C-alpha cells in the first residue's frame, strides 16, 4: 500500500510560474526516495506540497490517508504530526538547548513529561548526540545541528520523513554522516524517507530509488538509481 500518492498534480505559483506539471508518483511504506534535478526543477515545491506549505493548483495528494490538497489551514497540524521535516538551514530555536529543541516537538502536542524525556533521549541517542543535550545550537557544528533537527523530526515517530536538501550546507564528510543517520532511521524504524537533493556523491553512494524532475516534469523513476546527469 502506498503511503504517499500523487495523482495528476500541477502547481502554479501566484506569480504565474509553473513549478510542477501533471505529476504522478507513488511512494510505498519504508521506501527511501531521492528527488533530484537541477535548480528550479520543482523538487523543493514537491516536498513543500507534501507537508502542505504550498497547495497544488490541480490534482490530488494523499499523505498517510490525509487529502493534503484539500487540507484547511487550521487542520495542517494534523498532517504535520504524521511527518518529520528536515530543512537545509536546520531551523532550530537558537535560545533553546538541544534537549529543549527536540522536546519542543512533543510539548506542542501535549505529551506527558516522562514520555518526552524517554523519547527525546532515545532520538538523540539515535543521531549520536546524547552527550550534548545541554548545549545550545550555536555551540554545535553544522552537521551536529542538522542531527539535532533530524532528532526533532523523528522524535514523534512519524511514518514519513521529508528532507529538503539536508546536506546542502555541509561538507562531504558531514554529509555522509547525515546520510548514515538517515539510512539507520530508514532501516531500523522503517520510516519512509523522501529527500530532495542535488548532491551527486550521496545519490550514487546510497543506491536508492531515484526520481528525476526536469522543468517540473517527472522524467525518470528508477529503483537503485544513480545521479543521471544526462536526464537532468
Amino acid at each position: 500500500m502506498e503511503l504517499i500518492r500523487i495523482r495528476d498534480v500541477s502547481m502554479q505559483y501566484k506569480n504565474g510560474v509553473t513549478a510542477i506539471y501533471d505529476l504522478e508518483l507513488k511512494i510505498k511504506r519504508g521506501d527511501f526516495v531521492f528527488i533530484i534535478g537541477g535548480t528550479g526543477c520543482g523538487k523543493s515545491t514537491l516536498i513543500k506540497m507534501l507537508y502542505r506549505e504550498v497547495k497544488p493548483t490541480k490534482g490530488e495528494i494523499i499523505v498517510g490517508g490525509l487529502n493534503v490538497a484539500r487540507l484547511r489551514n487550521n487542520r495542517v497540524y494534523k498532517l504535520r504530526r504524521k511527518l518529520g521535516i528536515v530543512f537545509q538551514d536546520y531551523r532550530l530555536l537558537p535560545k533553546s538547548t538541544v534537549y529543549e529543541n527536540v522536546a519542543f516537538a512533543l510539548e506542542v502536542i501535549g505529551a506527558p513529561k516522562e514520555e518526552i524525556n524517554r523519547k527525546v533521549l532515545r532520538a538523540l541517542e539515535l543521531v549520536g548526540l546524547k552527550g550534548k543535550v545541554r548545549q545550545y545550537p550555536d555551540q554545535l557544528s553544522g552537521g551536529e545541528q542538522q542531527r539535532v533537527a533530524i532528532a526533532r523530526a523523528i522524535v514523534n515517530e512519524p511514518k514519513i520523513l521529508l528532507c529538503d536538501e539536508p546536506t546542502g550546507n555541509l561538507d562531504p564528510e558531514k554529509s555522509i554522516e547525515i546520510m548514515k543517520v538517515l539510512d539507520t532511521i530508514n532501516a531500523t524504524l522503517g520510516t519512509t524517507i523522501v529527500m530532495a537533493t542535488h548532491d551527486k556523491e550521496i545519490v550514487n553512494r546510497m543506491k536508492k530509488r531515484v526520481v528525476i524532475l526536469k522543468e517540473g516534469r517527472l522524467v525518470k523513476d528508477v529503483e537503485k538509481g544513480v545521479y543521471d546527469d544526462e536526464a537532468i
Partner: protein
Amino acid sequence: MTMKLFRMFFRSIRDAFKSVIRNFSLSLASISCISITLIIVAIGVMASLNVNNFTKVIKKDVTIVVFVKREVEEKDLGVIKAKLEQIDNIVTIDYKSKKQLREEMQATSSTLDATMKEWSDEDNPLKDTFQIKVDQIETIADTASLISKIEGIDSVNYGETMVNKFLSAFKIIEKGTVLAVALLILVTVFLIINTIKLTIFSRKREISIMRVVGASNFSIKMPFVIEGMVLGIFGSIIPTILIIYGYYALYDHFGGQIFSPLIQLIKPEPFVYMVSLIVLLIGMLVGMIGSYRAVRKYLKV
C-alpha cells in the same frame, strides 16, 4: 484529553515567563511602553473622574427658592407643600418662614442686624420660602415652571442664567473628558499592540518552527497570549504604585479640595484601588489582544 490541555496550559505559562526573560530587551521595551501609556491613561481617568465629581457637587448645590405670596395664611402652607411633593424631580423641600430668614440674615452681618432689628414681625418685608433641591438639574427649568403654577406662589428663583451657563459648560466638560479618556485608551491600545507586534515579529521563525513540528494554531497562540498578559501585568506595576502614592500625596497636599470647597477631590479610598484595577485590566487585556493579533498574522498560509 483534559490532562493534555492542562499540561499545554501550564507549559504555556512556563514558556511565557521563560521567553519574557530570554527576550529580555524586547520585553523591557514592551513593558516600558505599556507603563508609560498606562500612566498617562491613569492620569486621564483620574482627572476626568474628579472633574465629573465636582460638577456633581456643584449640581447638588443648586437650589430653587420658592417665594410664597404674602397673603397666604399659615394653614395653607401645608397645601402648597403637599403640591410641591407631588412634583417628580423634587428631592428635598425645606420650609423657611420669613422670621427664620430674618434671623439667619441678622446672624450673617452686624449691619444687617442693625437695620433688621428695628422691624417688628408685621413690618418684615421678607417672604416665606421653600428651598428645593432637584434630582435632575437638566430639567430644572420645567420643574420651576410647574412650581410657579401652584396657587399662592409669588415667584420662583433658581439663578436661571447662571445655572444655564453651568449646565452647558458641564456638558462640554463631561463630553470632553469622556472623549479624551477614550482617545487616550485608543492610542494606548494602538501603541501597545504595535510594540508587542514588534517583539513577536522577531519570533516569526519560532512560530514557523512550531507549525512545522505540528503545533495546532490554538497551541501556538496560547503561550503568546499568556506572554502578552504577563507583559501587561508587569507594565501595570509602576503605574499602580504611582496612582496609589501619587493620588494620596496630591489629596493630602490640597487638603481634599482645590481653591474652594466647591471643587472637592474624590476621597482616595477606594478610588485609587479602583483606578489601579482599571489600569491593570487595561494592561492585561491590551497585552493579550496585542499578542493574539500579532501571532494570528503569522499563522496564515
